[in-house]
């Protein structure tokens, strides 16, 4: 046995490409399944959420303007970085209560899902675009464009895959995101943020908060500069609250689909823009 003392990780937030503590200075205890203290996790405040939206909004125009090819390469890079940290993610999932086989399966599925969605970044446009055969002398086409800043509420029961499933279709389509990690299993989301930070993903494209869903959800759903909210759980009361608050600025409210690899998930946070051009001399 080595007498070396291991260096423990501080789990912080991920906002605008940086890893700040909560501006409120608050944190919450995270204990493993056997009640051993693992980490002090940042307890994000309403102000942290607002800061994250500012970061996401300022990253949006440039991210949306990148080519699908470029976004796809960056997201594929995320897959590469995940693969390199495979063992770390497995160990962390085990700390959060998963068995070894379960943890391995979740990490492998996550890597494969990232690679799968990365490949959609330059393909969904052709699937969802149309040239419209109008009856007048105009050339008219309709193309998908990202809706803007999207809030992603990760499901409580899945530390890593649940978050990645919801996040990928949002950002591959040029949106930027503010994600709220699982409150029950918050660790993997922050380690995933470290992956994003080392994958050439521009700062602010993804921002990840840990904290109390009950505290943050009304602010997230009611924020006037968020364009859509993806909600990954099944709680009827939360869903109702989200929709009520979302109506303030007509946020698109998006629910998961039965098939987690559905390309129609991408369409759920896209707008369709139709452009008319006269044909003539």
């Amino acid at each position, binding site marked *: 046995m080595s007498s070396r003392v291991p260096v423990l990780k501080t789990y912080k937030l991920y906002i605008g490409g940086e890893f700040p503590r909560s501006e409120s200075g608050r944190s919450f205890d995270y204990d493993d399944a056997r009640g051993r203290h693992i980490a002090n996790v940042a307890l994000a405040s309403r102000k942290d959420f607002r800061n994250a939206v500012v970061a996401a909004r300022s990253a949006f125009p440039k991210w949306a303007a990148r080519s699908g090819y470029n976004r796809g390469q960056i997201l594929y890079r995320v897959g590469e970085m995940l693969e390199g940290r495979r063992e770390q993610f497995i160990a962390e999932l085990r700390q959060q209560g998963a068995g070894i086989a379960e943890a391995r399966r979740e990490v492998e599925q996550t890597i494969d899902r990232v690679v799968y969605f990365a490949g959609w970044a330059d393909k969904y446009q052709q699937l969802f675009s149309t040239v419209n055969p109008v009856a007048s002398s105009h050339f008219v086409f309709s193309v998908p464009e990202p809706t803007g800043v999207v809030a992603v509420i990760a499901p409580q029961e899945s530390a890593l895959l649940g978050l990645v499933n919801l996040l990928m279709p949002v950002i591959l389509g040029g949106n930027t995101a503010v994600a709220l990690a699982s409150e029950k299993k918050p660790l993997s989301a922050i380690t995933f943020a470290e992956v994003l930070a080392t994958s050439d993903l521009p700062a602010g494209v993804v921002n990840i908060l840990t904290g109390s869903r009950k505290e943050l959800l009304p602010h997230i759903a009611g924020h006037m500069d968020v364009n859509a909210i993806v909600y990954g759980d099944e709680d009827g009361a939360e869903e109702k609250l989200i929709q009520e608050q979302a109506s303030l600025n007509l946020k698109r409210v998006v629910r998961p689909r039965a098939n987690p690899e*559905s390309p129609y998930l991408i369409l759920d946070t896209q707008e369709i823009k139709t452009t008319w051009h006269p044909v003539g001399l």
Partner: protein
Amino acid sequence: MSTTSVASSTGLNWTYAPAPETADPKIRSRYELFIDGRFVPPAEGQYRTILNPATAEPLTEVAEAGAADIDRAVKAARRAYEKVWSRMPGRERGKYIYRIARLLQERAREFAVAESKNGGKPIRESRDTDIPLSVAHFFYYAGWADKLNYAFPGARARPVGVCGQVIPWNFPLLMAAWKIAPALATGNTVVLKPAETTPVTSLKLAELIQEADLPPGVVNIVPGGRPTGAALVQHPGVDKIAFTGSTAVGKWIMKALAGTRKKYTLELGGKAANIIFEDAAIDQAVEGIINAIFFNQGHVCCAGSRLLVQEGVAEILITKLKQRIRTLIIGDPLDKNTDIGAINSREQLNRIESLVASGREEGAEIWQPDCPLPEKGFWYRPTLFTNVSQAHRIAQEEIFGPVLTIQTFRTPEEAIERANNTPYGLSDGVWTDKGAKIFKVTRQLRAGVIWANTFNKFDPTSPFGGYKESGMGREGGWHGLLPYVELEETA
């Protein structure tokens, strides 16, 4: 009827003799509710007097659907959905929708006159736009009914169920067609509430649907005001809501549906920028500006109500615009010479007047031509505002009338920034002779429909709908099928 005098730019006086459209609109003296394939009186016995806005005189009276009637209509739609319509092969459904298109085509002139009498819009528009486009929508979506298996890769399109549809008063028949055609094509049944001031062509459509022998309950039409709409939106037997109207009501609907899992699409307000660059063909742009804001008296959610002109051409453009406005003929909607018809209702006229008053009070400069207006009915002169700041209410709020604000800009970046600086995002226009510039600008505009060197063009194959607070979901084209289906993935 007096002749209309128009001052031309050459100083000559052209006089147009009246040219009224005389086809019989066949409007009954009283309309009942259309439920389960029959015209039935309302449970509470209420009727609303419907006016002709060009005379403010009664046109007909129409039954007002109450909560009990809505319940009856939803149940009829449910029975028709379960027993008949959702089971019918798409090919057969399509044939019924084709029938509607053909019958409407045959009676197009009659419907056009009815539309102009009830809504106040010029016969030229109802004849050339509203009715033919309504026909085209039915014809287009009829053809989708037996092709849905090829529409969505990897997925089967299942109908949603009973659709509650609430439509506005600005394009009464066209909005009914936009709502009913895709819903029926995808196997849904419908309960439709027309706007309180303009139910006539929807009820004439009900007659036509009877004539087409559609199975009872597939389409139900329940006129009424806001309480009728609210009862429909909140009825637990409705699976999907489709609404076109104001952003305020759209928000109310979204909130009212919270916790229900009903699907919804909302097509709401707008405050479109119409951007004129220095290198635009100015005379064409002037025609485009006129069409953008005065089409249908400006009662258009996508109207080009904010003119943004590049500084170098502002003076000449505004001069030409005023000249052109002086030639517009305002008056009898049934006269084929008429350019601008009646304001749809007293209520809407009040709203326009109050917003224009706010423009004056906040310091904007108003200009109106000195044209004669009819004595009876609801009318408003075409109106320009210059010296408008971005914070003025007239630059932020939807006026829904023939009122245009004019602002200038120096750079394309400034124009884009201003265009996007409202909570709305329904439509915009861009005028320039440079192709690459069109794409550079249109890409950055946050709106669902962009017209380049044209404005207010519509087609059933072309999706329509907004970004941001202009709503969600699209109507028209392939994209217009999506709100009416559940995708069951097969992959």
